[in-house]
């Protein structure tokens, strides 16, 4: 019996798929039966992800989504899609008083503008089937809470939450759904080797009621749900995925 949670027969574009959340999302989509088209900037790492995907027919496209012409080129090379998952993003820990216009530009470009442009161009070029699902990885930061040095990062994630509301309304006539997932801290390479040391990370984990950070594949499970027909009446929501962190 085919499960309503299956992605069999669906072609899904996944951005930021060379590592961390994007890679795990691609793996879970493939495991659920989707044909994945994965994109990121780094060719060799992206190839690694491609090789790790279950099933046949997956493709990779190297692209830098911070650049508008790259998004246009990517979109023009795509087959018609049943879903898009925007995972590409960067984290910055910089207090507001030290941040500069360059930080604003760079973070908004990578985390927010690239997503908005990609969705816009996919809609303009009619690359999405009816009843498609768009899933954007947001964050609890900037939406439910913040972290020290995260004002600009939080602003980019807040922008994504704002973006989906009207977009979900505009795409509803085509039964295209638009949702975000707002994860708490996820174990990815982004959080290692930074301004935060290992002891601080361990202490931070204890602030989560579940006493650990999330795993990239756990974001993947939530993505699969929002891409599947099981969530066909869900649009315009932010799915909180934080091990209970924001309960406190």
């Amino acid at each position, binding site marked *: 019996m085919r499960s309503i949670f299956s992605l069999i027969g669906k072609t899904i574009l996944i951005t930021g798929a060379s590592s961390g959340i994007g890679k795990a999302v691609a793996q879970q989509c493939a495991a659920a039966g989707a044909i994945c088209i994965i994109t990121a900037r780094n060719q060799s790492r992206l190839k690694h992800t491609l090789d790790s995907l279950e099933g046949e027919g997956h493709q990779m496209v190297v692209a830098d989504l911070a650049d508008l012409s790259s998004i246009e080129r990517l979109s023009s090379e795509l087959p018609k899609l049943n879903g898009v998952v925007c995972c590409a993003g960067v984290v910055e820990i910089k207090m507001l008083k030290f941040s500069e216009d360059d930080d604003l530009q760079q973070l908004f470009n990578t985390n927010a503008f690239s997503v908005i442009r990609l969705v816009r161009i996919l809609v303009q070029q009619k690359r999405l089937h009816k009843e498609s699902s768009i899933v954007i990885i947001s964050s609890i930061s900037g939406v439910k809470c913040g972290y020290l040095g995260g004002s600009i990062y939080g602003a980019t994630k807040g922008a994504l939450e704002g973006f989906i509301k009207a977009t979900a309304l505009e795409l509803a006539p085509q039964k295209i759904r638009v949702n975000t997932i707002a994860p708490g801290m996820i174990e990815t390479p982004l959080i290692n080797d930074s301004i935060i040391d290992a002891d*601080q990370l361990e202490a931070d984990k204890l602030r989560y009621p579940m006493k650990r950070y999330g795993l990239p594949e756990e974001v993947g499970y939530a993505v699969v749900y929002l891409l599947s027909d099981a969530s066909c009446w869900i649009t315009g929501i932010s799915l909180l995925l934080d091990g209970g962190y924001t309960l406190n």
Partner: protein
Amino acid sequence: MDIKKFIEDFADQFDETELDEFKPETNYREDLDEWSSLIGLAILNMIDKKYGVKLTATDIKDTITIEDVFNLVVSKK
């Protein structure tokens, strides 16, 4: 690099503590009541912005005095 200027930049991240309390030999975590993890973050951000050196929390962990931090920055410049 001039340690006097570095100490001024270091002290600038504090709101309450007077400049004359900052010496090269000051144990910045123990001797300065105002010290907090937020000021620690501000100092790492300041070093990145003004000295072009990105220190990680692990780098700075073994430093005790302000001069230790200064020497670390010099070594990484």
